[in-house]
């Protein structure tokens, strides 16, 4: 008698950040290769920026690609494919409204959509006057400068929606790996307190959440490391089973899924590898083994887990006023000296704003803008001066850009001035007891 085949879930990545490419997501959807796709749409700043949009127009604050994405998923959804994503950003209900409207537009009526609410903990962190350890202050002390506060939330509400037959699950600050942990645990029947299995699912989520980071993106360093067709990287997908996973990518896409690309992604943005904290688990990646199966297939096993953290991490958005950046290029003999002269001029001109300028720096790109001055031997043939200012005073921000532009008039030979003023939104962590974050789910239809 043949042995029963172990259950396998095939799940793919659809997005790694708010502005990620849609074509690889469409390719994944049309491949017929996966039954779930996870879309990570957020990074640390994205959430606060979404809150700023919502403040300007209360009907917005959701991911900005929904209208373009839904038609690309039409075939996939009509075949029963499922989607989980933090498209909600600052406004999960607006994400639902937009998904539903576009689904109806492409003729998909009655699609069940789970909406997860409650990650917005602005009121809670205000009531608790949470500490902001990286700033050395508290929520209360910053008063109305607090723009947003969203708790990283886990797989539990995702599973709740899937149990109610949601085909699309939308939330706000769902943690990146949880977008995959939810479907994996739901489909393979794993309890969300089965820590080792949740640790395994979290490893899979971590390998998929960053999109092309697993398939050859952010990886090349010629001549040491190259991947085929880096202009056409595919998103990764995984065949998940109990105890192991095979990660791969679609045939015909560029890049590479091999031992090297898997290692760099597995420990990307991990601190203590025995204590990777997510809302779902304290994951332990110290025992992971990686087996390159060839042909862009890699098997990983050995991730473990312990109980989830008692506190949820919250990202608190703080209004920091304005960030102004101005740039000007200098070239030829003496270019560095002329750029330094330009620096003296702009610093002197901006002195008038005094303590209104919270932070100011000048970098010479080509000399030491990334790592401090490490120039070895000789002078570069060109440098680009970059002035950056953070200030609550819009007038000071505009002046910073204007002063760089005025460098056209001296010192000699400045060219190519550019400038921008954007809102300066800080994002800083806080922690709240998990039981105080009240989540609710509702399954609606298109």
């Amino acid at each position, binding site marked *: 008698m043949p042995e029963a085949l172990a259950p396998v879930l095939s799940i793919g990545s659809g997005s790694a950040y708010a502005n990620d490419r849609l074509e690889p997501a469409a390719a994944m959807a049309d491949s017929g290769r996966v039954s779930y796709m996870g879309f990570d749409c957020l990074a*640390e*700043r994205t959430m*606060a920026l979404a809150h700023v949009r919502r403040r300007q127009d209360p009907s917005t604050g959701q991911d900005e690609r929904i209208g373009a994405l839904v038609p690309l998923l039409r075939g996939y959804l009509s075949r029963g494919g499922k989607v989980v994503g933090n498209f909600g950003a600052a406004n999960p209900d607006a994400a639902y409204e937009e998904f539903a409207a576009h689904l109806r537009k492409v003729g998909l009526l009655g699609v069940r959509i789970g909406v997860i609410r409650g990650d917005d903990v602005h009121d809670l962190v205000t009531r608790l006057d949470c500490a902001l350890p*990286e700033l050395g202050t508290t929520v209360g002390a910053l008063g109305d400068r607090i723009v947003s506060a969203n708790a990283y939330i886990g797989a539990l509400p995702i599973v709740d929606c899937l149990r109610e037959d949601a085909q699309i699950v939308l939330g706000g600050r769902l943690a990146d790996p949880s977008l995959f942990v939810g479907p994996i645990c739901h489909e393979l029947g794993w309890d969300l307190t089965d820590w080792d299995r949740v640790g395994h699912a979290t490893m899979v989520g971590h390998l998929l959440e960053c999109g092309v980071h697993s398939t050859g993106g*952010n*990886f090349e*360093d010629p001549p*040491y*490391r190259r991947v085929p067709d880096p202009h056409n990287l595919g998103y990764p997908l995984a065949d998940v089973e109990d105890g192991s996973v095979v990660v791969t990518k679609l045939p015909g896409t560029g890049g590479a899924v091999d031992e*090297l690309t898997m*290692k*760099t*992604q*597995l*420990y*990307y*943005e*991990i*601190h*203590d*590898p025995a204590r990777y904290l997510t809302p779902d688990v304290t994951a332990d990646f*110290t*025992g*992971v*083994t*990686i087996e390159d199966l060839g042909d862009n297939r890699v098997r990983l096993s*050995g991730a473990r887990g312990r109980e989830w953290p008692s506190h949820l991490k919250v990202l608190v958005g703080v209004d*920091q006023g304005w*960030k102004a950046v101005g740039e000007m290029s200098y070239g030829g003999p003496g270019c560095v000296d002329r750029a330094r002269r330009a620096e003296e001029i702009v610093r002197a001109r901006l002195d008038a704003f005094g303590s209104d300028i919270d*932070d*100011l*720096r000048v*970098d010479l*790109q080509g000399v030491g*803008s*990334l*790592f*401090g001055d490490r120039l070895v031997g000789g002078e570069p043939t060109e440098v680009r001066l*970059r002035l*950056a*200012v*953070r200030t609550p005073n819009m007038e000071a921000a505009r002046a910073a850009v204007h002063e760089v532009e005025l460098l056209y008039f001296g010192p000699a030979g400045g060219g190519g001035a550019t400038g921008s003023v954007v809102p300066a*939104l*800080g*994002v*800083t*962590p806080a922690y709240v007891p998990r039981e105080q974050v009240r989540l609710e789910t509702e399954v609606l239809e298109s």
Partner: protein
Amino acid sequence: MKLREMAYSRSGDKGDVSNICVFVYDQADYPTLVEQLTADVVREHFGALVQGNVVRYELPNVHGLNFVLDKALGGGVSMTLRVDPHGKAFQSLILDIDLPGDQR
């Protein structure tokens, strides 16, 4: 020899903390990596870019090391005025470290 000849790397950010993981191409080089690429060597190489501690975790299962650099991103991605707020280029800076190499 430059670390780049022996190893590859990736840097990431969380708040004001940067982590850089480093892996050898040839596992025969792993003992050399562990012996020579210490937290102090990395601390020294990064200089004033890092204002906090540098902690090293060994990853013997994948022949790698993970460095966690505290107060390394000028206040954090969203706060800093640096050109590279995420420290994406740190993965290249670490590979420029000179190691004595295999002394056997």
